[in-house]
């Protein structure tokens, strides 16, 4: 993954005769790092597939002792984990799509130097990038309350719907399109929206992909907004349900307390979507980070 942009300056795999003691120490460090990351995850995975009996026994769980899917069944049906799961799926999909749409349209308008509202858009954008979302969480709650958006999916979809970082990233892609292309399209009688969808969106596919992945991960993991805006238990999202079950331990399935296998099953369901998008993340996301961080 991310083996550097050009990857010229990389150590080559050397013949065995040149491998020194230091190299073996480096191997040990790598194995240690992998174990440090993987052991807690394996522990959770093993417990999630353990039977009730095995889940309450102390000991080192890195592999399911008595294979069972009872944890998943209790989580999904009895604790109704399917509900927050699909709520999050909905909010993530719609929210990510609208985020990309609003951001790319705003970026397109910024290309037109004589557009009367250009300065306003840019000014507001930089203002919004300066104010951290955490700092205005209580006023934002009040705004949602005044607009009657509490306990709606809309409040979660709108949260973070436009971001200055997205606009700037896409603006950079749009800028690479030669101006003559826009002129030609305009002479053919194409309006701005048509030029935007037919010319500009296709050239910025890598940028859109990076933004989309960033949004999917971010919205799936969205926590502060549903915590503040949603109190209706039918509308809570996955991170809130996960907190109730795996962190607070307040959920009960009927009369039984929730065991470790059920708790870890919810954690595994919580990261499931990330497993599907991980291959794409490796391709786009990491490049995006590197581009954003080192500006090269």
């Amino acid at each position, binding site marked *: 993954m991310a083996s550097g*942009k050009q990857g*010229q300056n990389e150590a080559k795999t*050397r013949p065995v005769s040149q491998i020194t003691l230091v190299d073996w120490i480096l191997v040990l460090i790598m194995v240690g790092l992998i174990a440090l990351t993987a052991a807690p995850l394996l522990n959770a995975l093993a417990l999630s597939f353990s039977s009730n009996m095995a889940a309450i026994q102390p000991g080192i769980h890195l592999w399911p002792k008595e294979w069972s899917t009872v944890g998943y069944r209790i989580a999904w049906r009895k604790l109704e984990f399917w509900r927050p799961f699909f709520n999050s799926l909905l909010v993530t999909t719609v929210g990510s799509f609208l985020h990309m749409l609003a951001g790319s349209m705003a970026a397109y308008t910024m290309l037109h130097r004589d557009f009367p509202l250009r300065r306003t858009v840019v000014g507001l954008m930089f203002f919004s990038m300066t104010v*951290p979302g955490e700092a205005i969480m209580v*006023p934002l709650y009040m705004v949602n309350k005044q607009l009657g958006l509490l306990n709606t999916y809309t409040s979660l979809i709108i949260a973070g719907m436009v971001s200055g970082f997205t606009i700037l990233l896409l603006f950079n892609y749009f800028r690479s399109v030669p101006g003559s292309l826009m002129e030609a399209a305009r002479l053919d009688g194409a309006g701005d929206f048509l030029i935007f969808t037919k010319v500009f969106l296709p050239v910025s596919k890598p940028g859109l992909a990076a933004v989309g992945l960033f949004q999917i991960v971010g919205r799936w993991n969205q926590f502060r907004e549903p915590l503040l805006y949603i109190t209706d238990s039918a509308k809570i999202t996955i991170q809130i349900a996960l907190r109730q079950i795996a962190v607070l331990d307040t959920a009960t399935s009927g009369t039984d307390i929730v065991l470790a296998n059920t708790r870890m099953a919810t954690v595994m369901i919580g990261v499931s979507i990330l497993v599907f998008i991980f291959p794409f993340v490796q391709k786009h996301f*990491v490049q995006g980070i590197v581009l954003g961080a080192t500006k090269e």
Partner: protein
Amino acid sequence: MNRLRLRKYSQLYLMALPALIYFLVFSIYPVIQGLYMSTQKPLLLGGGVYVGLENYRSVLQDSMFWQALVNTLVLSGGMIALGVSVPLFIAIALHELPFAPLRKLTQTVIYTPHLFSWVVVGGIWIQVLSPDGGLFNELLKLVGLGPVHFLADTVWIKPVLVLLSTWKGMGYNAVIYYAAISSLDPQIYEAATVDGASRWQKISKLTLPLLMPTVGVVFLLSAVGALRIFDQVFILRNAATSRTIDVVMTYVYDKGMREFRLGESTAASFMVTVVGLLTLGFLRKAMNVDDVETS
């Protein structure tokens, strides 16, 4: 003429509209609303009365606020120190490693937790650190120690939070550093090899100095989030530890959403935000990051 302009840009107006409305309603308006609320004292029957800077004063006189501020600085100080240094060490080790497949595997594995939410990280580690039968305490038992209740012990909770942040974020920062090392000119290293430089000399005299601009960028990226930590503390705090780890943003949340003292809540968040932005601007200037980035 005016109508012609409006006509010419009609589609652009429509395309800019969602962003404009969003920025006005969900960025400008909340800031104004918040500033207004910070000068109001709510009345019992609804509405409020103007009290000037009274809310700001009562926040500054609240020992809980100062405690939260100190906790924030200690926690984020630890998180920044480890978050900047540990990944640097990892990236250099990755670069020195002569086995490409193992390098790729390590990068991929340690990057994964960055994608997890703090609820997931919390859920996983609450289980691992559990005093009855958790993985870590079982390992401690093998060497005759424990069990330690890491998440309910006021001595342990701060280091645990810092270490969990490092665990979650080290892969991300390591990728940034590693990309910077890979883009360095290999000819410099070849020249150093010809001159008979040892491996350690190449790391200390070449890699580290050349990486300093990237270290600066990673430091600033971490510092931006320093005063804003909320999720990890909110998720991992409990009755026993909240005084030890409550941070500014959980203070703002508690004041506003639990005690409904909106004036004090917004006053606290505005003071901290302004001080934070000034500090950050100063850091940027002092470190000359803008020059470094573009050069």
